[in-house]
């Protein structure tokens, strides 16, 4: 519960009245939209994105209500909230108690489900090997996702169904990877695995080492997966087996498939108008795609949409007014469109 309050207060503090409560919700939940992507970078809270993936609107509303009842936040109108003085004290206090674990990066690994996918592959593979190597061919799989099941089958086939060798290699890699983590994290990870001797534990059951907070245990667990990406990518040679688990999982893939398609057409030299026609999309949708591309394409060209001077103007107004509210910026720069302002703001990171 406390970890939940901490995350809520952190995000509310980052946003600092510049977005609606809906915007905060989308950040916590990791909504796949251009606006949320841009906000994540604009408000420098990208590592928090998607940290409460399972959050329902109802839980969120109730959560806010509790914070309000405690006097830690107050509503400014019905759609924006502000952190109060005692709320700020509480946030600081909680921030001493809770921290994002080392290596945790929501935007990179939670947003598009990379960490979740890696875990599905790992846990199902470990489970399958542990059962098969004991001659047990019938068991209840920890993952029902057909895709994951197919993936594991492929992996086995690729290794000529030599389960013993596979298990040994995987063990070696996991052992080496976990040894670099704190002992507590090694325990957390292995406790989540399911084998014939033991069913995986829930985060509630593993929360003791994490201030009795299941959510905090969960975040640490996800962080292990995030670190796995980093360690394995940075040293493929040391993790011959684990690196196979990362095949086909992109961290920085475009958050939406649709934006990817737009990017493809633009690269063919089509104009925005043409893309709009061809894809039957609204102008604003294409603009959203461009924002995504600006955030993720390393060599995205601003030129067709903005001059260098425009970008400088927007950034200086934003910093002078200490705001990220588009309306306030536009009041100062009426000659620019909202889209241009948003695009310019992607430069602010």
């Amino acid at each position, binding site marked *: 519960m406390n970890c939940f309050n901490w995350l809520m207060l952190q995000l509310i503090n980052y946003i600092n009245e510049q977005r609606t409560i809906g915007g905060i919700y989308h950040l916590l939940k990791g909504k796949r939209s251009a606006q949320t992507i841009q906000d994540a970078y604009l408000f420098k809270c990208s590592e928090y994105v998607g940290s409460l993936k*399972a959050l329902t609107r109802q839980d969120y509303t109730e959560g806010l209500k509790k914070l309000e009842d405690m006097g830690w936040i107050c509503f400014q109108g019905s759609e924006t909230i502000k952190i109060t003085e005692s709320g700020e004290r509480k946030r600081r206090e909680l921030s001493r108690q809770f921290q994002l674990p080392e290596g945790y990066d929501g935007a990179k690994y939670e947003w598009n489900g990379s960490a979740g996918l890696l875990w599905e592959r790992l846990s199902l593979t*470990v489970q399958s*090997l*542990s059962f098969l*190597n*004991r001659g047990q061919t*019938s068991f*209840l799989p*920890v993952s*029902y*996702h*057909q895709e994951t099941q197919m993936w594991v089958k492929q992996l086995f086939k690729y290794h000529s169904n030599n389960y*013993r060798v596979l*298990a*040994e290699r*995987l*063990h*070696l890699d*996991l*052992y*080496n990877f*976990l040894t670099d983590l704190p*002992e507590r994290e*090694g*325990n957390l*990870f*292995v*406790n989540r*695995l*399911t*084998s014939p*001797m*033991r*069913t*995986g*534990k*829930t*985060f*509630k*059951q593993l929360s003791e080492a994490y201030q009795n907070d299941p959510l905090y245990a969960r975040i640490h667990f996800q962080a292990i997966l995030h670190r796995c990406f980093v360690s394995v990518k940075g040293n493929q040679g040391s993790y011959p087996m684990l690196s196979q688990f990362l095949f086909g999982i992109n961290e920085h893939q475009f958050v939406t498939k649709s934006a990817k398609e737009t990017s493809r057409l633009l690269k063919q030299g089509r104009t925005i108008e043409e893309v709009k026609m061809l894809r039957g999309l609204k102008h604003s949708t294409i603009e959203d795609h461009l924002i995504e591309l600006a955030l993720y394409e390393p060599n995205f060209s601003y030129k067709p949409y903005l001059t260098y001077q425009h970008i400088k103007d927007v950034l200086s107004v934003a910093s002078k007014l200490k705001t990220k509210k588009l309306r306030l910026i536009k009041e100062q720069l009426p000659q620019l469109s909202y889209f241009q302002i948003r695009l310019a703001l992607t430069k602010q990171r």
Partner: protein
Amino acid sequence: MINLTELLKSKFGHDQFRPGQEEIIQSVLSKRDVLAILPTGAGKTLCYHFPAKLMEGMTIVVSPLLSLMEDQVHQLRAAGDKNVVQLNGLLTFEEKKRILRSLNKNSILFISPEMLTNDLVIRRVSGIQIGLFVVDEAHCISQWGHEFRTDYLRLHEVKERIGNPPCLALTATATSQVEEDIIKKLAMEQPVIHRFSVNRKQIKLITVEAFDKTEKLDLFFEHLKRLVKPAIIYTSTRKEAVAMAETMKEKGYVDVAFYHGGMTKEDRLLIQHQFLNNEINYICSTNAFGMGINKPNVRSVIHLHIPPSIEQYVQEIGRAGRDGQESTALLLYTKEDRAVPMAFIDQEFPTERELKTWFSVLKGWNPTTPLVDSSVMEELQRVLFIDETRWKMLLYYFRKFGALDDKHIHMERVNDQLFKKLYQHFLSRRKHKENNFYQIESLLNGKECIRKGVLQYFGEEMTGTLKKCCSNCGLTIENYPLNDYSQDENTFASWQEELENILVPYNRRGLLNETSRHN
């Protein structure tokens, strides 16, 4: 004529049929509609699993609870059946699509009534030859169908649309009234009815009234010293299940967890599997975990509230002793406990005023607006200020009484007459539910043999007497020896050792050498 017993041995590994099974299977194989009433744990699963393997075409099994579906699918798969699949509301859209695509005439499909009444599903399923239509836990039609799961009452429509395959309805708990209801609501044709006694001799029944909640808790822990584990502890609400698991932990029962319908799917599965694997031995649960679940060695079932009906009580205690060994069902209650089930009944039905308001708001609704659009439906639901469950119930009855078709509400039929009809219906259903509760209350208040009372409720006479029967026949917890559970310390050694155990148990030495080389 095929030799069924031989098949039983070769395909299922059982030496002989249990009472009732062979007759039921024979009737099903002769393609009659069949209603089978066999006690909990008697082996009803086999009554459809067996014919499913012999009959031409796909088998559909309608199942009410997620936990039950999981359990059954696992057991059938473990018995070597790879064609078993399930469809329920917790799957993603993609997964559902994939499963629907994969169906064929050898499939055994477990499905919730809500999914089965979905138009897309019906269309897909009706393209496949269907050999058998099974409704497991068929008493749910009566118990839940009329109110919060009205899709149960639409199963006969589905049955018709998929070409009226032979229908098998199974339950442990059907009074003659429920029996009638099942036959009617499923539109079964001249069904063969196989009825066996509901009695489970190996389950000993104890009921104890506590003075108040505090004493109830004390008594619970007193009893727990003697009641054998594994045990299921039933509470009336999710909150209580969570709190009770916490309290038990504090008292040193570390191998406990809670279970309820509000948990994530992942957590639910983990807890269920831990329990089935004897990794945890106490589970505090709402009624989301119960009906149909087959864990052979459950030794005790404890109720910390009064179940809403004798049916539900019998279903839940039926989790005990399925391996045939002696077990105990304890029901601990106080007078105050009646408030919760009564409130549940209250919530289920609209009051006269509410119903009136809904009607008058509806009348102001533009009658030409087609209802096909789900957003219009949502809007309407919002205007009426009505929760999902009751909204579905209302729509069901509007449809039933001809005031609603696929596209429109017929405003001219939303009149006083319909109001009276609905109101009368809800009133009598409410009475019925209250009555169900009074019956279990009076069973508890009575001085007569509890077993006898239960049997009477299902229209049976008790034959003979049992040695250790129930608390009204002289059985008390003091007759049980004290448990001697040495503190189950957590056996998790270190992650290094555990990981090795999981992946390379056969090769300790060699592997350790290899690891140290690597470092």
